[in-house]
C-alpha cells in the first residue's frame, strides 16, 4: 500500500515537473518573445532550448535555478540566479564546489558586488548562464581561448590592448596555448586589484607571476625566450629593493608594460631602443636618464661569459678575494702557532 502511494507520488512529481518545464516554454520558446523597457529598449525573452540542451545543466529544470518562479504568470522582475543553491560544499547533487566561492567573495569582483555595485560580475556573468559549459570544454566562456573575450565583455579597452600585445597575438592569433590569457596573470576567483598587496599583479608579486613562465622553470624557454629574466631581475638593484620590501622601484611591468607588452623590436614596445629612454626616464624613476644610460643591456648576468667585461671583473674579484683572504688566514695561523710555541718554551 505504502509502496503504491510512493510510486504514485513520484510519477506525479515527474509529470508535474515536465509539465512545469513545458509550461515555461509555452511563452519562452516563441522566437519573438520579448518585452519593451520603459527606456524603449527591447529585451528578448526567447530561450533557445538547444543551447540549454548542450550546456552542462542540460536536464535541469528552469525552476531549479529560477526558484522565485512559483506561479504563472510570474513576477516581472526575477532575482538573479544564485548558483550557491547547488554549488555548496557537500551538496547532494554533486555540483562541483571547492573554496572557490570564498575566494570570489574576497576578490575585487566579490567585494564590489557585496558593496552594491550593479555592474560588478556574479558567477553567471563570466561563466555564462543558459550556455554554461564545463570548464574543460573548448566552447566554455572560461576556456583559455575564450577568456580574453569574456573578460573583455566588461574590460573592453584592456581587451583591445591585450589583443595586440605579444601575449594576445600569440594566444589568439597563433593559438600558442602556453601564452597567458587574463587569468594566467590575474588569477581566477582570487582576482585582486594591483594595489591589493595579496594580488598576483601587485608590485610585490608581479615578478613571481611573470616568473611562472619567464623564470628558470618557466615555459618561455620552449619558445626561445630567455628563462633568466626573473633571476637577473632579483639580482639587480630593482630586485634587491623589492626583497627589502621597497615597492617604489621598478618591477617587470614598470618597464615592459602589462596589457600592452610587446617584443623589443616592435616600434611600439616600451623597451624598444626608440622608447627606452622615456621608459627609464619616467618622472618617478630616472628623469635624468641619458641615452647611453638607458640603451645598455638590462638583465645582465655577471656570471655568464656572454656578459663580457663584467664576467671577467667578477672572476678577477673572486680570485683576488680568495687569494688575499687565504694568504691572510695562513699568516694569522702561522703567527698564532709561533706564539704558542714560544710561550710553551717559556719565553
Amino acid at each position, binding site marked *: 500500500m505504502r509502496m503504491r502511494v510512493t510510486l504514485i507520488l513520484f510519477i506525479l512529481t515527474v509529470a508535474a515537473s515536465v509539465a512545469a518545464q513545458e509550461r515555461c516554454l509555452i511563452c519562452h520558446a516563441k522566437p519573438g518573445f520579448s518585452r519593451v523597457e520603459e527606456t524603449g529598449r527591447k529585451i528578448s525573452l526567447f530561450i533557445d532550448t538547444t543551447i540549454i540542451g548542450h550546456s552542462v545543466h542540460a536536464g535541469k529544470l528552469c525552476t531549479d535555478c529560477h526558484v522565485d518562479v512559483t506561479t504563472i504568470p510570474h513576477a516581472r522582475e526575477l532575482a538573479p540566479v544564485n548558483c550557491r543553491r547547488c554549488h555548496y560544499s557537500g551538496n547532494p547533487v554533486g555540483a562541483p564546489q571547492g573554496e572557490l566561492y570564498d575566494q570570489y567573495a574576497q576578490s575585487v569582483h566579490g567585494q564590489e558586488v557585496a558593496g552594491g555595485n550593479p555592474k560588478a560580475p556574479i558567477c553567471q556573468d563570466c561563466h555564462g548562464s543558459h550556455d554554461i559549459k564545463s570548464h574543460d570544454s573548448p566552447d566554455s566562456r572560461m576556456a583559455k581561448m575564450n577568456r580574453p573575450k569574456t573578460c573583455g565583455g566588461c574590460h573592453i579597452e584592456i581587451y583591445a590592448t591585450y589583443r595586440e600585445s605579444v601575449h594576445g597575438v600569440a594566444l589568439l592569433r597563433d593559438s600558442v596555448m602556453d601564452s597567458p590569457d587574463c587569468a594566467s596573470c590575474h588569477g581566477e576567483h582570487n582576482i585582486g586589484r594591483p594595489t591589493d598587496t595579496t594580488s598576483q599583479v601587485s608590485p610585490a608579486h608581479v615578478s613571481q607571476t611573470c616568473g611562472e613562465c619567464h623564470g628558470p622553470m618557466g615555459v618561455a624557454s620552449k619558445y626561445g625566450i630567455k628563462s633568466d629574466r626573473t633571476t637577473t631581475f632579483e639580482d639587480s638593484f630593482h630586485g634587491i*629593493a623589492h626583497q*627589502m620590501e*621597497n615597492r617604489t622601484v621598478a618591477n617587470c611591468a614598470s618597464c615592459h608594460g602589462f596589457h600592452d607588452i610587446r617584443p623589443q623590436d616592435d616600434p611600439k614596445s616600451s623597451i624598444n631602443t626608440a622608447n627606452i629612454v622615456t621608459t627609464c626616464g619616467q618622472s618617478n624613476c630616472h628623469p635624468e636618464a641619458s641615452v647611453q*644610460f638607458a640603451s645598455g643591456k638590462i638583465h645582465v648576468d655577471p656570471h655568464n661569459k656572454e656578459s663580457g667585461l663584467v664576467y671577467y671583473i667578477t672572476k678577477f674579484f*673572486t680570485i683576488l678575494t680568495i687569494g688575499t683572504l687565504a694568504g691572510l688566514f695562513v699568516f694569522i695561523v702561522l703567527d698564532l702557532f709561533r706564539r704558542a710555541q714560544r710561550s710553551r718554551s717559556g719565553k
Partner: protein
Amino acid sequence: MDERTHNAQAKREQIIEDLTKAIVDAAQPHIDPSTPREEIDKRAKEITERLQFESNIALSELVTRFSRIKPATEQPAQERTYIRFGRNFRAQHMLMFMSVILLILTGMPLKFPEFGISKFMIVTVFGGLQNSTLIHRIAAVGLIIVGVWHVGYIAFSRMGRRDFWLMIPRPHDAKDFFHTLMYYLGRKPSGPKFGRFSFIEKFDYWAVYWGMVVMIGSGLILWFKEMFNKGLFDIAREAHSDEGLLATLAIIIWHFYNVHFNPEVFPMSWVWWNGKLTESQLKHHHPLEYAEIINAERKEVELRAEKQSTGAESES
C-alpha cells in the same frame, strides 16, 4: 759629573776614534783609489756614529741592569711613551671607521638580500631601503672626506709627508716578508727588525688605498648612474659589491686580528685612541725606528753641548 766618569767618557771617545781609524785603515787596500777623500770621510763619520750608538746602548743596558735604583721595572706606569699616530691622523681614522661601519651595515645586506638578517637590518633597523641608502650616501661622503683629507695630509703636513715616504714599499719589505715566513716556519730564531712601518703595515695601508679608490670610484658611478653608460654601471656595481665584501672580510679577519684578537693586544690596542706606544712596545715592534729616535736624541744633546761649549769659548 765627577772626574772618573769624565775620564771614562774621554777614554771611550778615544777608543771609538781609534777603532774607526783602524777599520778605515783595514779597508784602505781594497778601496778604489779614485774614490774622493770626502766620501771616505763621510763613511768614517758614519762608522764613528754607529759605534757611539752601540756603546750608548751597551752603557744604558749595563746601567739599567746593575744600578741599585730600578725605576724602569718598578714603576712601569712611568715608562716613556712615543707618539705613533698624531692627533690629525687619529681623527682621520675615527671618521674613517665610523663611515666604514655604517657603509658595511647598510651595504652588506644588499649583497646578501636572501638572508633573513639582511632584511632585518634594512627594514627593521634602518626602517626601509629609502633610509638605508640615504645613510649609505651620507657615510660615503664621510669616506670621501677622509680620502681628500688624507691626500692633503700626506701632501701638506710634515708628519704626513714623512710617513707617506716611509710607507712606500721597498726591496727590504720583500726580504722582511720571507724572513718572517722563515721565522714562522722555525727556520730562523727571530723575526726581522722593523722600522717605523713593517711590510704588514704597508700592506694594510696600500690595501686601504686600493679599496678607497675602487669603492669611491665605483660608488660615484652608481650614485650618478644616469650620467654614465649602462655597461660601465654594471662593471661599477660588480666591483663595488665584490670589493666591498673583500674589504669587509679583510677588516674583520685581518685588521681585527692585528688590533683586537692578537694575544699581544687582546682585547684591544689603544693606539687608535691615544696614539701612544710605550718604550718597550716601540723597542719590540719597531726596533729600527727606536734606534733612530735614540740616535737623533743623542745627537741633539751633543749638538747642544757643543753649542754651549763654543758659546763659552767665544765668551771667554
